[in-house]
């Protein structure tokens, strides 16, 4: 179950920033990464999204040089990198724990990479000032890492990595330990910095909202495989695997059997029409996936598929209200309504309330 290489993008120079050619990584008996074949284009903000243990951090470490692939090769700007140790790769990393040098102050931390390259002292000074301005930490050069807040430390780590103008910047869940508000703010800042600097970012996260909002393209990983790779809209609206459907957003999978072409019979006995792929035959077992926001509640439009159900649970989330509706048998669907000015306040969808759900056939997906 490998993802197909990304379609030809808009990069003028064909060489991708990073190319994974059948990369596999084994730790003893376990395969952390399995036969990865993806391309990351220059200047894009690329995210590796997946649950813990899916192999995304291992992938990142292989690009940085801290792990070597067991099979396959990695190409950085067209050149294979196996023989190159981490300190000679044109790649820099922002670690999850920031990994700042505690015994050095902010300026020395940021300057570290430049000093290794033996850049002239006054040029270092200039570059450090420029970087600190970029991350909005001007004036804190003398501070020690322990004196800074989490968000500030993270920005130092960012500056420290960016100052070397690497070809690729790797970020390993950098916002994980920040509180929600700060995280949202940093997401915006990171995206802006990336656009300004133009460097390829490879961003690892398990937060799907983060990935959706920041990335040019996302690779969803599970158990070492890349399940799907594409732009956020594609990954969300057109998931190709049940896992992807479930990991990003709420999947709402209902099982059924194909009866006639274009019709699926659900476990509850109800038949719905659905856009089946050409090679579906009667008797095939399929799963229908519908996003909750695409489901209409009791206000069915003409042309919609209709189903009856009973409210099982109602959750108030502030901006939206979500209800879980039992369809009979094991099937359940989650639908929601935004609590906008048009929401009908008197409709309180109590538990046990019977209602009708509907969706346009083109809004559902068929998965096998």
């Amino acid at each position, binding site marked *: 179950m490998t993802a197909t290489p990304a379609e030809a993008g808009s990069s003028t120079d064909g060489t991708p920033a990073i190319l994974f050619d059948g990369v596999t990584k084994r730790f003893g008996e376990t395969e952390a990464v399995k036969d990865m074949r993806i391309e990351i284009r220059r200047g894009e903000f690329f995210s590796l999204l997946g649950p813990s243990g899916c192999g995304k951090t291992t992938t990142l470490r292989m690009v940085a040089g801290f792990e070597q692939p067991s099979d396959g090769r990695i190409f950085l700007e067209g050149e294979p990198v196996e023989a190159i140790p981490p300190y000679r790769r044109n790649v820099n990393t922002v670690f999850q*724990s920031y990994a700042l040098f505690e015994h050095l102050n902010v300026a020395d931390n940021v300057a570290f990479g430049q000093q290794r390259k033996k850049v002239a002292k006054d040029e270092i000074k200039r570059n450090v000032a420029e970087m600190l301005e970029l991350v909005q930490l001007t004036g804190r050069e003398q501070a020690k890492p322990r004196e800074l807040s989490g968000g500030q430390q993270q920005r130092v780590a960012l500056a420290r990595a960016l100052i070397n103008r690497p070809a690729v910047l790797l970020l390993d869940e950098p916002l994980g330990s920040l509180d929600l508000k700060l995280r949202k703010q940093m997401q915006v800042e990171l995206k802006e910095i990336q656009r300004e600097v133009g460097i390829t970012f490879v961003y690892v996260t398990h937060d799907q909202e983060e990935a959706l909002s920041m990335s040019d393209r996302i690779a969803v990983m599970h158990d070492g495989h890349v399940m799907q790779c594409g732009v956020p809209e594609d990954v969300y609206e057109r998931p190709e695997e049940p896992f992807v459907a479930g990991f990003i957003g709420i999947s709402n999978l209902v099982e059924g059997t194909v009866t006639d072409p274009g019709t699926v019979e659900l476990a509850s006995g109800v038949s719905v029409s659905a856009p089946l792929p050409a090679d579906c035959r009667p008797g095939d077992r399929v799963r229908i996936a519908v996003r909750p926001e695409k489901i209409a509640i009791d206000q069915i439009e003409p042309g919609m598929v209709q189903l009856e159900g009973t409210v099982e649970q109602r959750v108030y989330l502030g901006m939206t209200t979500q209800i879980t509706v039992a369809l009979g048998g094991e099937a359940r669907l989650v639908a929601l309504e935004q609590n906008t000015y048009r929401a009908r306040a008197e409709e309180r969808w109590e538990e046990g309330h019977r209602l009708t759900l509907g969706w346009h056939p083109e809004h559902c997906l068929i998965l096998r």
Partner: protein
Amino acid sequence: MTAARGQALRLPFSRRGTAGRETRPKEFDRPRFLKWFLVAFLVFTLAPIAIVALFSLNSSKSLQHFDGFSLQWYQDFLNDQQLRESLFASLEIATVTMVVATLLGSTLAYGLVRSRTRFSGATNVLMLIPLVTPEIVAGVSALLLFTQLGMQLSLATIMIAQVTFSISYVTVIVRARLSGLGREVEEAAMDLGATRLQTLRLITLPGLWPAIVAAALLVFALSFDDFVLSFFTTGTSPQPLPVRIYSSIRFGVTPTINAIGTLMMLISVTTIVLAIALPRLVGRREDRTPLLGGEV
């Protein structure tokens, strides 16, 4: 137990309502009883040592009555050639052991934490053996080994034996500190362009040296104080101080021993206190020179 629990359940509020102290007098007494226990303990443990120190300054030979201050026993000690030789021998052994054990132990710790070889697991366990071996077993083994190899017992044999058994202390201390530092910081340094050697010099060692110093001083103190191991592996002359003292004590208690004992005490305790305090004191002066001036 059920009865007590029943009681507790029946009266939770009333117990919490009134001041807890009143309904549980035994509880209130506990700190007091324990406190005096602690005081008695401290007296008991410190008194003998204090008395030895006191009587080392006694102007008379008696161990029962203190007659006045005098440094004669210290003079006797320093005038005795054999004892002097022993003192220097002990110091020499301790210094050499400190340097060698620290070096070997630190590199071993680094190897264990940072590289994953086939031997790592086994070495980890083997390294603990010296720590749990009773000294007498260690002494006997060392003695047998040396005689098997046909070696003459001398200061050198003592040093070898002590180094062997001190390495583990160093390794344990340094290793703890090293894992605490975390490999991400070292990876960050390499990611930014520092070679392994540069990383070691610029990043790892600055963070590690308090542990190394503490371990070194600890080895010094342990070696200086060591008796059993030295006893089995020493030559005839010169002998380390503790061995000499032992022989003297067997023949009876003399006031000179008080002086020697006090001196040894001072040396060991100072060393260990330094081992604990030094890294903390110096560690605070971490003001590295600013970007322009410094080399870093």
